[in-house]
């Protein structure tokens, strides 16, 4: 069985290499990839370069910086970017920084169909599809279950028994998470600026009340890791992978899906408007969506991918942690981010500034 599959793999890669070699002699490109930490591990890049002849230059970033970078150049400087699926339609309508995908160049059979369909739907602008899914995950709570057993939802971060020992980011996921925990539905209000402002005002009041409880607002993942590891913070809003990483060091700390629902995100592949190496970009997408490669990325990034069949290659530890954090009901309760309409950032921005400045 293994022998056969190994041989098959060898045969396919030889064929692929030959075809690639023939095709690429004329067009070995440099792929400038704008992505997140862990999404382009060195061994994957090396294997891709060996197979296709392209070279890959990786730039690490986050959602906001990706869009800001592409906006500064009108969509130039990179050939492939990986913003979240909710941050594509809005910026595209506003700034025109992406270009439509040629789906015929992508092997769609490698994707989990429901996730592919959802991402396509969310990233369609004027009838053209701009994004396909890559890595997905959730944000929720990372809790030291021994020291803060009572924290089950975002609003529990404001309770008196964890005073001075909680942290969260002053970013939009916090606003959205708190809104859900307070029984509001911010996603339903996305399309209506007045309704959304009303929701955000309630969240603002809550966050101001909660402020004395907060030790500090964390900015980067490493900062949060330090706070939790040292025990200075016992409960925080964070990504699932952060919790699982800490769980490996300290079994008490883990990711908890909040009662009101974890917030689900999907990071995608998009082509920047002035990208020059589209073929290399498509090659990269098709390469990393192979189940074995996707599993390698999962091992480094800690999150699962939209690649069909990659779960089988994921490590048992990661699967165990995932299942401990997510009961089937919690999976069904994940709130997936719908596309952010242009202009919402301004409303949220005012709220975040006022919360930060509040006494």
């Amino acid at each position, binding site marked *: 069985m293994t022998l056969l599959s190994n041989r098959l793999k060898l045969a396919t890669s030889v064929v692929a290499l030959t075809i690639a070699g023939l095709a690429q002699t004329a067009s070995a490109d440099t792929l400038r990839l704008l992505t997140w930490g862990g999404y382009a591990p060195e061994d994957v890049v090396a294997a891709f370069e060996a197979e296709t002849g392209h070279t890959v230059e990786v730039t690490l970033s986050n959602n906001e910086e990706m869009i800001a970078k592409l906006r500064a150049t009108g969509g130039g400087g990179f050939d492939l970017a990986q913003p979240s699926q909710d941050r594509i339609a809005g910026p595209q309508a506003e700034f025109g920084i992406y270009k439509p995908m040629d789906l015929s160049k992508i092997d769609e059979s490698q994707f989990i169909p429901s996730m592919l369909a959802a991402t396509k739907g969310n990233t369609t602008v004027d009838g053209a599809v701009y994004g396909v899914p890559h890595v997905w995950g959730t944000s929720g709570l990372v809790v030291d279950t021994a020291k803060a057993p009572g924290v089950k939802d975002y609003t529990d971060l404001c309770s008196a028994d964890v005073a001075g020992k909680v942290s969260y980011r002053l970013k939009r996921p916090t606003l959205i998470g708190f809104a859900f925990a307070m029984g509001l539905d911010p996603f339903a209000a996305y399309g209506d600026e007045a309704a959304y402002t009303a929701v955000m005002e309630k969240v603002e009041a809550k966050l101001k009340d909660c402020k004395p409880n907060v030790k500090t607002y964390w900015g980067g993942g490493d900062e949060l890791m330090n706070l939790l590891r040292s025990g200075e913070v016992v409960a925080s809003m964070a990504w699932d992978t952060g919790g699982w990483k800490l769980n490996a060091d300290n079994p008490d700390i883990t990711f908890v899906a909040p009662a009101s629902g974890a917030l689900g995100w999907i990071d995608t592949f998009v082509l920047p408007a002035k990208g020059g190496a589209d073929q290399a970009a498509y090659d990269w997408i098709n390469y990393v969506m192979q189940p074995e490669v996707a599993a390698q990325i999962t091992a480094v990034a800690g999150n699962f991918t939209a690649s069909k069949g990659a779960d089988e290659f994921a490590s048992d530890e990661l699967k165990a942690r995932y299942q401990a954090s997510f009961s089937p009901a919690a999976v069904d309760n994940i709130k997936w981010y719908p596309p952010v309409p242009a202009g919402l*950032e301004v409303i949220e921005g005012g709220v975040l500034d006022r919360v930060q400045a509040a006494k």
Partner: protein
Amino acid sequence: MQAGARLGFILLLTPLLLWLTLLIIIPHIDMLLLSLRERVGVGQYATSPANYLTFFGEPLYLRTFMRTAVMSVLATVITLLIAFPVSFYIAKIARGRVQSSLFLLCLVPFWVSELVRTFGWMILLRETGLISTLLQYLGLASGPVEMLYNDAAMMVGLVYTSMLFMVVPLVTTLESLDDAVIEAGYDLGGNGFSVLREIIIPHATPGIVSGSIVVFMLSLGNYLTPTMLGGKDSLWFTELIYSQFIVRFNWELGAAFGFMLLILSSVIVWGMLRLTGQTLEKTMG
């Protein structure tokens, strides 16, 4: 001969002019135009002063603006108070090898980047950090002491970051003061305070002013230190600019903020020069 001198002059001036126009003047014109733009719809913009009105209409922005200015002035004053005795010692009292090694000691922290220096302070001040642990070990504190994430920590960081830029001009001006003048002051019946007030400070004024200008500008435009040490309450104006540009995609408001900061710093520096009776020429010459 004259033509040759002129050519030399032009050649020497060219890098400066290129620097100024390409990296300072043109981007600022672009920023000004950007700040006068208002988003009226998806991808549509109109010229209007709306961003500046937002700035003046929202108390939060004005408050942060004033807070940043006051804290920067305070940081400058503290830096001056600490740096003056240090510089006087280096320039007048220490001699030979001690003098150069003291000067080097002021310089050494600047061989690592500001980020590393700030992290150093975080390691010292945090709840599980060195100072807190030491206090508990000595029995001076019963539980962990949190010294990070407040205005005092931020002020420490700001003063530390800008110390060198105060010490260098002060040492230079103080070195040019003839010791005989100080001795003459004492001979004429002056005491330590009156010599300091009548002789040393007037002589060192250009150094004090230029050092203060540099330190003030560095503090006002600092992003790293307030963000990392300041914590949840201390919003710095540069953080507002950053978040408008990067997080909110609101370049228009960010550009307006940038211009307000430019105007603020210019006004305060001008005011300081007027107040001390100095001119820029005297200070820089």
